């Protein structure tokens, strides 16, 4: 899905500045049995614009919320922790499940993410096969196992 066109509903918002990691993640997600609809943005500012329907997404329907946000921590413009804090401190976006997907195993990153209300913290494996497996498990959990707050009302 191209950045400029994803005005329709999506399942996964992938926030990732590394183009290689983004390519691998989308490939792994789409090949899984759940085949989620994925949109990709490459920095924190765009992620906030998308989720709060501002900037280039001002016309987007705010009721269409992804089932999960996969969030890298080290991002240009607005970093991942800041995106997380903004999402979790706003009643409009607080319920959206956010999974930090990062290369960092640093205890301080893990602590700060949980303190800011992250729903899950996942370290990207260096090993490509393990990375694929990890993305597949994330997709099947958040698309299948987990009961999403999205569209569950009524």
């Amino acid at each position, binding site marked *: 899905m191209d950045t400029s066109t994803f005005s329709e509903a999506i399942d996964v918002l992938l926030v990732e500045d*590394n183009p*290689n*990691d983004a390519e*691998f993640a989308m*490939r792994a997600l789409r090949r899984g049995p759940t085949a989620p609809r994925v949109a990709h943005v490459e920095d924190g500012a765009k992620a906030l614009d998308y989720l709060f329907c501002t900037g280039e997404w001002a016309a987007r329907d705010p009721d269409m919320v992804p089932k999960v946000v996969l969030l890298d921590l*080290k991002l240009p413009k607005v970093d991942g922790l800041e995106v997380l804090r903004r999402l979790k401190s706003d009643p409009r976006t607080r319920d959206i499940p956010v999974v930090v997907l*990062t*290369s*960092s*195993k*640093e*205890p301080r990153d893990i602590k700060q993410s949980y303190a800011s209300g992250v729903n899950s913290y996942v370290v*990207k*494996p*260096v*090993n*490509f*096969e393990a*990375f694929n497996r990890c993305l597949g498990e994330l997709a099947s959990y958040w698309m299948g196992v987990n009961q999403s707050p999205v569209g569950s009302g009524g």
Partner: protein
Amino acid sequence: MTHNDLASLLQQLEQAHAQRAAVEERLRAANEQLEQRVAERTAELTATVRELENFSYTVSHDLRAPLRAIDGYANIVIEDERGKLAPDSERMLGQIGENARRLGRLIDGLLSFTRLSRADFNRGEVDLDRLVLEVAAELQESGVAGNTRFEIDRMGTVWGDRELLRNFWMQLLGNAVKFSSRAGRPRVHAGLRIAADGPIFFVEDNGVGFDMRFAGKLFGVFQRLHHESDFEGTGVGLAIARRIAERHGGRIWAEGRPDEGATFYFSFPRECHGDDSIKLA
């Protein structure tokens, strides 16, 4: 005593007094200078430590991504071109991926080693009997221990950092399990002996052992006595164990013979032992 004598004495006294005041002043100035120098050096050291922390943080994040890209694209080409590649080309692409993954493991090992020096040290009473059983159970549950038989003697308690000691036993038992995995009946025995200057703990296995000529290399970072193709690993496990022993003021050493197993010994200083462990003798 004449009036002159008295005046001269008084003058001498005054001179001595002035000299003493001058010495005191110099001493005070020197002290002040010393304190300032200590403060400066401390600030320099703190800055260096911070720089190292930032460095390992950068390493952990920035080196992983390109490695994953190397492994990833090599794998994708193999996958997408299956059947179309010359066998040797496929093998070489496989080697590219394998080496990227290996470098990833080395970086992880190095990072977990450097993280040790930064870890907080919280001293408390640690129940070794429980801790060692927990570690052994974890090795068994994760499948690492295979069909290894553990014999664990009573060890009482020590004063130390629980998390670090847990890591310590994980490295030592993990090491013993790994290098005895090819024995007919792998066996790992952990316990303690009482020596003249306190208890000496040991972990003994019936694995491949090692040549005592290379004993000095056992505890170095990235030092390995066996080929990675024989026993997987990065060569930081025992370096981690030594660092943890040292942080407790203790020491670690090993004895072994090729094909006749290895025994790792370690002792902690007296202040690490509660009354409980002494009574075990």
